[in-house]
């Protein structure tokens, strides 16, 4: 399992590098134009690190991911993703994932981002992808859906969350300096969060 997760991170690195220009373009419109560069730099570092090492537990893997991203992404997204993965490393086990512990993991990730960034849903940030994704898992769980369907629904919810940032006015992060003029643009961090979620789910669903 740890190995499968490691491969999912490697795949995510590829996806983020492929989307470097796209994320940078989104960030140019309402930020400082470096989000793609930051994510590509951090995940390239991460891929290097993971390729050269093996990990005995999921927790160890996620801790490495967290520390590597923290010390190489920089900007706002570095500490946020870093703290999210660090929080995950504290709760993830090596048992086969069930919907309920997937939800716990998602909640920890969101809690990490919120602790660090002090933002709420609706402020046009990565949280607007992450929170709907976790909410979707919870709903699937309540409705007793199977894992496969839950993941598909989760991916769709993340995508919708990302798209919804277009109409939001940013009140956190660099885009908030724009006030109303931030409306009409998709948030770069919400987009990278969607790409990460999508890639992981594609690997497992």
């Amino acid at each position, binding site marked *: 399992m740890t190995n499968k997760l490691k491969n999912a991170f490697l795949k995510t690195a590829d996806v983020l590098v492929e989307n470097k220009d796209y994320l940078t373009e989104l960030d140019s419109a309402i930020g400082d134009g470096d989000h793609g560069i930051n994510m590509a730099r951090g995940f390239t570092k991460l891929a290097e690190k993971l390729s050269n090492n093996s990990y005995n537990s999921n927790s160890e893997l996620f801790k490495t991911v967290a520390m590597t991203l923290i010390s190489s992404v920089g900007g706002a*997204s570095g500490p946020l993703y870093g703290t999210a993965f660090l929080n995950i490393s504290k709760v993830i086990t090596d048992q086969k994932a069930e919907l309920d512990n997937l939800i716990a993991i998602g909640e920890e990730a969101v809690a990490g981002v919120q602790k660090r960034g002090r933002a709420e849903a609706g402020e046009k940030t990565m949280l607007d992808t992450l929170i709907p994704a976790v909410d979707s898992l919870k709903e699937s769980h309540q409705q007793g859906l199977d894992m496969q369907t839950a993941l598909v629904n989760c991916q769709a919810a993340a995508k919708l969350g990302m798209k919804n940032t277009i109409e939001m006015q940013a009140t956190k992060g660099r885009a908030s*300096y724009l006030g109303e003029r931030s409306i009409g643009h998709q948030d770069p961090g919400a987009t990278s969060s969607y790409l990460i979620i999508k890639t992981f789910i594609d690997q497992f669903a």
Partner: protein
Amino acid sequence: MNKKLINNPDDVVSELIEGLVLAKSDKLDKLADYNVVVRKDAPVEKVALVSGGGSGHEPAHAGYVGPGMLDAAVAGDVFTSPTPDAIFEAIKAVDSGKGVLLVIKNYTGDVMNFEMAAELAEAEGIEVEQVIVNDDVAVEDSLYTTGRRGVAGTVFVHKIAGAKAAAGADLKEVKRTAEKVIANVRSKGVAINPCRLPSAKESTFKLAEDEIEMGIGIHGEPGTERTKIKSVDQIVSELLSDIIADLPFTKDDKVALMVNGMGGTPLMELYIATRKAINFLTEQEIDVAKTYTGEFMTSLEMEGLSLTLLKLDNDLTELLNAETEINLFK
């Protein structure tokens, strides 16, 4: 895609830091493996000042490391906050046991990364305080948002808090002094031509042949208003009006003025802007006690300028004029 005098875009930060340290190898050191510049004689028996942020703002911040200003500067990638591990190394390298003040520009990324570094330092028993500079009046101030950006006014914090620390004040006093500067400093900028990140293909924004943007940030962040180009006298008057109204600065106030070039602006234009700024302030009966014209907080090769006013009392005046080895900001 505008030309640049660089090598590999991925190496610009490490190479610029190397160049800076080589040029002053008797005064500065670079920490191995980190883009961190420290005073060669660090740690000095006094409260230490650490600042930093994304690169692309040269001479900020590494150019301000030296007696009377910073003890260390941490350089992130271009326009990207440095990471906590690098900041933590800087803190460890300059702490003499008297504590460390972090001077942070108010960007979410900077605030979070410095905060994480502070947590790491505190866990090792280092006393750390932080101040957050937010002098850009182009951004609306609100409790519910990230607040204002930190821009060129940061250099006044380096100078004045640096002088306070050099004078032997303790960490709380140095922090209080820094906060006093922050409470009294305001800036606003304009761009007439954009900048391009070394690793990006296009400039961060575009301006037409006859367009300028008021209220621009120092990372190519969009400003508040796009207009047709105007005379520099008109531009300076508008920027100063917004700055003055904000604090507000009033008749008989004594101020320091900074006319800051954004990287691609020739000195000729900065001097012409200085002329209008001083004349404008003098008309408002605001007393310009000291003027700084040059490049202090740039934005790669962006063309444009920012104006900063710092309201002075006797205490701040004395610290501003205190001895420093940083020729850039004497």
